[in-house]
Each structure stands twice: as C-alpha cells, then as structure tokens.
C-alpha cells in the first residue's frame, strides 16, 4: 500500500479484465462465494421461520406485555463485532461457560470452533442474534391484521391452523418477503462477527466473500483482484435482488 503513489492514478495502465480472470480462476473465491450463499440462505430461512412461529405463538403474551419485546430485541443493540467477541468468550474451549457446563453436566463438550462444527456455530450465532428482528417484523404485521377480518373469517368457520394458513399468513406475505430479503442480504454480506470469532476459520472454512475481499486487499496485497471480486459481488447482488423483487411483484399480496 505504501508504494502506491498518485502517479498511478495520473497515468493508469489498464489491463482489461485480467484481474477478473485471476479472481475467477481462484478456487478460494468460489469457496467464499459458496459459503456466503449457503450462509445467507440458511440463516435467512431459519430466522424467518423461527421469527414467524414465535410472533404468532407468543402473540397473546406480547400483545399484553409489549415491554417484553425490549428483552427479546436486546441482542440487536449489540454490534455484530462485539457479539462475535462475546461468543468467543462464551464458547472458549478453556474458559467459556458453555463448554464448562456441558463438560460438567454431560462429561463432554464439542469443539464449537473446530473445522467440522464452525459453520453451524456461526449459523446458530447469526440466527440467535437476528431472529428477534424477524420476530419484531412479524409481531407488527400480525398485530396489524384487522379484527374485523378475523371476525368475518370466524363466522365462516375458520379457526386455528386454517385461519393462519388461509387468512393471516397471506396478509403477512409482503412482510415475509421483505424479512427474507433483508436477512438474506445481511447473511451474504456477513463480515464482522465471523471475522472476530474465527478469522477466516481453519483452512478458510468460514471465509465469506467480504472476508475474502478483505484478506486479498489487506493481507495478500492483491488490490486489483480484491476490487475485481468486489465488482463481481456487486453485480451478483444486483442480479439476485432484481430477480427477487421481480418474483415478489408477481406474487399476489
């Protein structure tokens, strides 16, 4: 970095798509892209499913005691990097309370940050931190369904699961789509909590695309390749989002 001067900006020598070709030939790029897509998809689906279930199941309590939402949404107030540090302490092999009590109660404790387990560990951490967000969205959507609509459905004989499946869920479908999209975007671009918790993980096992770009740029000094990867990431994100919103518009609200 220190050898890059303004002369470079003044008289650039372009090499076309050479950096892009280098990135596309790099196996680590495809591994990190695969990790980001798997992580984003899995966490988005789990968070939305869990948030929807909890919002509906806990609705009778949360509508009467709204202050409980403050406790449930507390993890959202913690910066993701700080959350990574907290879990680093909580899951630490020698001093962490979770391995300590698992060992004391069951005589064994898994190595949460070992290569075989680390993917699921970071998935669970992300789900635990951000399910309160989807819970909050669904709680508001569920509460905003008009009582008259429910009453009319009841008069037609709707109740329980049928009421949810045919009346309430279709009315929450736009919220469902928005929650899924927001959580997918956040999952794909995940950086700070994973980087703080595991670095890139053993053998790059938790290297998301943003971590790949960061390490290429700052650790490897491959600035051109890192920026080419950033451009590819932006293009891929645009394509995925354009398809998602187009699909969402076709769905009846």
């Amino acid at each position, binding site marked *: 970095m220190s050898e890059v001067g303004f002369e470079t900006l003044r008289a650039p020598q372009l090499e076309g798509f050479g950096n892009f070709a280098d990135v596309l030939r790099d196996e680590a790029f495809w591994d990190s892209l695969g990790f980001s897509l798997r992580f984003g998809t899995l966490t988005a689906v789990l968070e939305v499913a869990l948030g929807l279930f*909890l919002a509906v*199941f*806990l609705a*009778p*309590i949360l509508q009467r005691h709204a202050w*409980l939402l403050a*406790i*449930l949404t*507390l*993890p959202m107030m*913690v910066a993701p990097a700080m*959350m990574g540090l*907290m*879990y680093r*302490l*909580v899951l*630490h092999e020698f*001093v*962490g*309370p*979770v391995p*300590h*009590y698992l060992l004391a109660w069951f005589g064994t404790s898994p190595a949460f940050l070992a290569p075989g387990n680390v993917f699921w560990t970071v998935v669970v951490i992300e789900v*635990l*931190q951000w*399910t*309160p967000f989807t819970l909050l969205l669904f709680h508001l959507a569920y509460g905003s369904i008009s009582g008259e609509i429910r009453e009319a459905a009841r008069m037609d004989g709707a109740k329980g699961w049928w009421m949810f499946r045919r009346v309430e869920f279709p009315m929450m479908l736009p919220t469902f789509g928005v929650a899924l999209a927001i959580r997918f975007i956040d999952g794909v671009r995940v950086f700070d909590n994973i980087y703080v918790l595991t670095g890139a993980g053993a053998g790059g096992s938790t290297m998301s695309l943003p971590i790949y770009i960061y390490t290429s740029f700052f650790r490897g000094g491959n600035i051109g390749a890192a920026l080419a990867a950033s451009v590819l990431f932006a293009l891929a994100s645009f394509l995925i989002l354009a398809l998602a919103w187009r699909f969402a518009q076709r769905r009846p609200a």
Partner: protein
Amino acid sequence: MTALRWAVLILFAFLVNAPVIATLATSLKPPGEIMGNPGSG
C-alpha cells in the same frame, strides 16, 4: 397453553441473551478471578 407460551418465551429470551448474561456475570467478578477463569462459575 399459556404456561407453554411463557416457557418458550423465557427459553428464547435466555438463548438470545446468553452472551449478554455471560458478559454481565463476568463483569461482576473481581479482576483476579476474571484473569484466572473468566467464564465458569
């Protein structure tokens, strides 16, 4: 059913706030004990 709802709520609140609770518990320990064994107990 109400009891089950409260149980799920408390379990969920505990799970999502576990690192916050662990941090709070550790912050109440004297420095010597934190250096010795920050997580357990």
